[in-house]
């Protein structure tokens, strides 16, 4: 079958990917540089295409809480924003993490603090990798470096979110959101039926039927010991994610004397620099974390490069392609 | 003439003695007991059971839903 290729903005690719994934709902609020996400959704009218609900909320706060409501019904729900709006979503994300709900959030990062600028930035790194809101929780963070990855990470993100019942963040930026690249588009998946949702998410609030106890979605536990137990459970979950879901790309690391460590847009710049330096005879490599959490963890992984590479999945196809181009040394 | 006789059953352990039912009863049947329940509340009881007409006003206003109402027709 012939591949379906399209020239798209990153922001459009993510919306198309959500529709094709068979997502159930998107709730958004306009903010530069990610407004194309909701604009594309509205233009596509996914309620007609797949039955997916799309709604422009009155604020980022409302939007993330709408995601909470839909996710608690077992739905594949998502929202998107840019840095100032993402700050507003932290309250909701904390509740979503506390109630262990799956959802997908996109942050098309712009410079800050405050209103900052509308130019791209990677300044939300700490907010993204340390949880972001109140309480001890972590997001699963995926950092795309291309429009294709914006598309691909929707499916990976939703799958991870449902696997671990945890919010997943796609940490993009203004460049990847706005730039146009060729995207290979996957087939349209059919949205789950209500029965399939109930089967996949027996914990969801889909209406208390006679054959089960009532389902309650909450992040509240007034008994301190139970809350502590819950926190321990979360830590365990995050440890599992750390162990099993690490994704990164290592390029030219085998013989490298120096390596760049960079994600997203910066990794694209570093890749070019690496190529130029290689031509001048410097043995330079690149480690591009795709999932990451906190600094301590990244450092541990990147200090010893062989350890990093051996333990975690690398993108072989890409590395080989690069290796061919490099001059033999 | 047919006469209505009613009676209420109070879950005394769950009653909080708020006495909302006392004011709601049109016949002045209910009162708070001198004794207290396990939580230390003076629970509600039928002081004057003869007068109860089973209108359920007490149960309707009871915030804790501890009152059940029974009613019979007596010839």
């Amino acid at each position: 079958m012939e591949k379906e290729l399209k020239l798209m903005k990153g922001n459009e690719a993510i919306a198309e990917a959500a529709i094709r994934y068979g997502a159930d709902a998107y709730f958004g609020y306009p903010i530069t540089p990610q407004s194309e996400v909701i604009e594309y959704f509205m233009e596509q009218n996914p309620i007609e295409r797949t039955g997916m609900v799309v709604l422009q909320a009155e604020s980022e706060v409302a939007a993330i809480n709408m995601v909470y409501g839909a996710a608690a019904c077992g739905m594949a729900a998502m929202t998107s924003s840019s840095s100032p709006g993402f700050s507003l979503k932290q309250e909701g994300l904390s509740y979503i993490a506390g109630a262990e709900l799956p959802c997908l959030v996109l942050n098309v990062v712009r410079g800050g603090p405050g209103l900052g600028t509308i130019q791209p930035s990677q300044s939300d790194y700490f907010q993204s990798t340390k949880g972001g809101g109140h309480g001890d929780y972590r997001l699963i963070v995926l950092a795309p470096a291309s429009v294709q990855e914006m598309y691909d990470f929707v499916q990976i993100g939703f799958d991870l979110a449902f696997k671990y019942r945890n919010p997943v963040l796609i940490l993009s930026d203004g460049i990847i959101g706005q730039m146009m690249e060729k995207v290979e588009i996957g087939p349209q998946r059919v949205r789950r039926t209500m029965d399939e949702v109930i089967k996949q998410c027996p914990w969801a609030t889909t209406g208390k039927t006679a054959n089960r106890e009532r389902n309650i979605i909450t992040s509240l536990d007034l008994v301190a010991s139970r809350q502590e137990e819950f926190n321990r459970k979360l830590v365990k979950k995050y440890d599992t994610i750390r162990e099993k879901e690490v994704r990164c790309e290592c390029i030219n690391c085998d013989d490298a004397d120096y390596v760049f460590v960079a994600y997203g847009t910066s990794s694209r710049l570093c890749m070019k620099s690496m190529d130029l330096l290689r031509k001048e005879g410097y043995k330079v490599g690149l480690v591009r974390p795709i999932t990451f959490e906190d600094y301590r963890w990244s450092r541990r992984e990147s200090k010893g490069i062989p350890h990093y590479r051996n333990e975690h999945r690398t993108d072989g196809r890409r590395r080989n392609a690069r290796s061919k181009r490099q001059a033999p040394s | 003439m047919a006469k209505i006789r009613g009676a209420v059953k109070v879950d005394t352990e769950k009653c909080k003695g708020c006495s909302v039912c006392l004011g709601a009863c049109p016949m002045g049947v209910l009162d708070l007991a001198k004794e207290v329940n396990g939580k230390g509340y003076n629970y509600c009881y039928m002081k004057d059971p003869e007068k109860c007409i089973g209108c359920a006003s007490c149960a309707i206003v009871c915030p804790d839903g501890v009152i059940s109402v029974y009613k019979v027709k007596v010839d």
Partner: protein
Amino acid sequence: MAELTINDIIKEENLVYKKTKVMTDNVMHYCPGCGHGTTHRLVAEVIEELGIQDKTIGVTPVGCSVLMYNYLDIDMQEAAHGRAPAIATAIKRVMPDKFVFTYQGDGDLAAIGTAETIHSCNRGENITIIFVNNGIYGMTGGQMAPTTLAGMKAVTCPRGRDVNTMGYPLHITELIAQLPNVRFVTRQSVHTPANVRKAKAAIRKAFENQKDGKG
């Protein structure tokens, strides 16, 4: 004819009123006499009468009634402070055949959640919002609420609410009633049997409006 004893009357066949099965047997944490218990029960009774226990999803607020999900035997979600209407919006939109209600106090609905309240009503969401107003923040210990009456004392206005510096009590019900997409707004109380009956009829009507898609 022998005199009837209490035990003759208290028999299953003579039962005219008892707590609905949609309520759980958990003892409520509310203070004695608090109207939350009554209102919870009315919601439960309406759900039972309409036969929609398996189709109803409730959203609880932050405040005293945060633990409402312990008392109603239906699927429920606990919202962040003030955000219940946004959550209910999403539930209804992804599952339009379900009955969705929020249960919120005055601090939750008329202060921190004003935007969510007004906008969900303005969109004409097909949901029911049950607003329980006691004019005070109860759970946190008696602070001034948006609905605290002029001159009324609270721990954050110990000399009484001064309308010149703290504003007048917010008439959120009247504000909502101005919105063209809002179908049914009513103000009820639960302090006497007659008022309880009226309040129940109002809740029932609100749920029936959802059924008819009237919003």
